């Protein structure tokens, strides 16, 4: 589904990603872990198409398309979803209207008729239950005045509404209390299916208590320095990142 080959990327002239390789197949759950500043969020931004990030080498294919050639909105319409680490606030724009616009843009892209209000509301009701989100939140402006947990739940709700092929969760667990973490993780698990893949980016192992990854990769200094299964995450939790990063030659 997603194939990343030797990606290098710069931010403001500084190289952050120094050759990433990653293959994700439908139905798989991958976790990327790593210490702060290792390039985790940069990878998420590059995949979503944030313009400040300059890809200097490498290629990415997504569902057999050249991902890097697509605009951010086309990537989204193709089925790539990024749950933001810091979802922005947009004053005055109601969350419901926003999601409706997003859903219908995607339908249009795929040659489908826009949803009428009745069917849209019906789908919305179903998905709201899934992520235990309250109606009142959705009539408010996007993320405006939301608590950290509410913002993250709103992200997962949007993911549910947009039914992406690949969901990238950028530090979705950061700043969540244990209840919110459980709700968010449940939401993700319920959406997971053999057709969909999930890429979880996280600093800590605790989200992985709820979401079972098939593969765990350790990102350090712009490269994946180790890959393994769920046990790798537990090992990291126990020993810290040092045990991996020691002995990695930074200049190699």
């Amino acid at each position, binding site marked *: 589904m997603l194939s990343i080959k030797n990606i290098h990327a710069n931010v403001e002239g500084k190289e952050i990603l120094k050759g990433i390789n990653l293959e994700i197949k439908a139905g798989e759950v991958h976790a990327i872990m790593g210490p702060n500043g290792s390039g985790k969020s940069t990878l998420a931004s590059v995949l979503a198409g*944030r313009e400040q990030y300059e890809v200097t080498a490498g290629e990415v294919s997504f569902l057999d398309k050249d991902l890097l050639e697509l605009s951010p909105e086309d990537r*989204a319409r193709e089925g790539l979803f990024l749950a933001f680490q810091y979802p922005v606030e947009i004053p005055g724009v109601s969350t419901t209207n926003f999601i409706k616009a997003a859903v219908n*843009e995607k339908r249009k892209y795929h040659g489908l008729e826009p949803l009428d209000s009745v069917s849209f509301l019906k789908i919305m009701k179903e998905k709201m239950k899934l992520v235990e989100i309250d109606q009142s939140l959705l009539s408010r402006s996007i993320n405006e005045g939301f608590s950290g947990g509410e913002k993250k739940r709103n992200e997962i709700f949007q993911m549910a509404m947009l039914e992406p092929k690949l969901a990238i969760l950028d530090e979705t667990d950061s700043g969540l209390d244990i209840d919110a973490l459980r709700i968010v993780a449940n939401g993700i698990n319920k959406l997971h299916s053999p057709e969909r893949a999930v890429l979880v980016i996280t600093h800590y192992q605790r989200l992985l208590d709820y979401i079972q990854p098939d593969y765990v990769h350790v990102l350090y200094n712009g490269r994946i320095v180790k890959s393994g299964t769920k046990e790798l995450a537990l090992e990291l939790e126990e020993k810290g990142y040092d045990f991996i990063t020691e002995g990695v030659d930074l200049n190699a």
Partner: protein
Amino acid sequence: MKEKQGPLEQAVSNDYKYGFVTDIDTDTIAKGLNEDVIRLISHKKNEPEWMLEWRLKAYAYWLKMVEPDWANVKYPIIDYQDIIYYAAPKPKKQLNSLDEVDPELLSTFEKLGISLSEQKRLTGVAVDVVMDSVSIATSFKEQLAEIGVIFCSISEAIQLHPELVRKHLGSVVPMTDNYFAALNSAVFTDGSFCYIPKGVRCPMELSTYFRINTENAGQFERTLIVAEDESYVSYLEGCTAPMRDENQLHAAVVELIAMEKAEIKYSTVQNWYPGDKEGKGGIYNFVTKRGICKGDHSKISWTQVETGSAITWKYPSVILKGDYSIGEFYSVAFTNNHQQADTGTKMMHLGKNTRSRIVAKGISAGHSQNSYRGLVRASKQAINARNYSQCDSLLLGDKCGAHTFPYIEVKNKTAIVEHEATTSKIGEDQLFYCRQRGIDPEAAVALIVNGFAKEVMNQLPMEFAIEAQKLLTISMEGSVG
């Protein structure tokens, strides 16, 4: 700076959709302004002697005045002798009903979304349409007359209700008020007149649609609304003009009078031709709008959505004379390309326990300059005066400017005045967030801009809110419900 069009620039570049010219036989007089021209206008309109005298007096004042230069706008010197002061579509015969209006004119207004023909009329909205210098038609006149509401062109009012016009004309905006008001008083050609008798709640929206058609013609309309005790009226105005390379002058005066417990709600969607992308052409919109809350517990509310005109110079104001009177000003001013807008309000607190509220939202794009200029004055007698002002600017692009000039003058110790202002831009983060959800940049900008302007848009009557939103969001292609 890169000249490459970013998503923001692309999103805000649109075309003016009302720029066509109606090919119609027009009665115009020669360019230029002097006493004879004023006599001619007055004669063509078959005006009584007092009206002509009033005009000539205003003209004499105007000659002595100098054009103001304090506004934050730049434009070449206007040659007042190079303007046609009277242009009217030639009537084929005396009209007995609206259905006899020239079909060419009817289709013009159909194109503008204003239906005049009896069967297609907007329900619940009475419309007066003014093209160039004259009112062409007014709908629902008879129905309104039954409850005592007078809604007609000001020319007609001068003929039929001279006592009302004479009493109120110039009572809120004196002919000496400012340069453009004096000019208007001398040469105004048409406009609307509304009179709501005591205790009547006007059952429908009253609306005037202004259209400039003739080349080189200036439009100088005059609107007068009088709301007697305990009456209510909601009035809407809209305006468009053809696209021309030359600038055209529009200098209107609007006067509102609210007596005891009366309420006037005045909404404007201003979409005069703004000029092209290089700043060529467009309307110079120099307008004096002022209302007086004459009676106690009266209320005047201005709502404006300003998207057109090359230059806007306009400060709808309220004189809060009656005790417990209320003034409101809600404004969205959107400027693009080379447009310049200097707009805002004045709230003059004179009576006791008067209240005013100002919400002004400026959106600047392209090379435009957008200024808010406002005055809140609490006079010595204005015990317990309250004002709250909020003015926010949103910048789209790095070649435009946003400016805020609020004046606050307080002479009463029990007055409380609060003003807040912010300036920000559409964040790249906000834009990217929308795009990541599959919304293209154009629609994303429209969404964000609408969100920014929402507080004001909510003040518009339903029929106008939709039109205004369309104007603002330009081409959202119906993607957002």
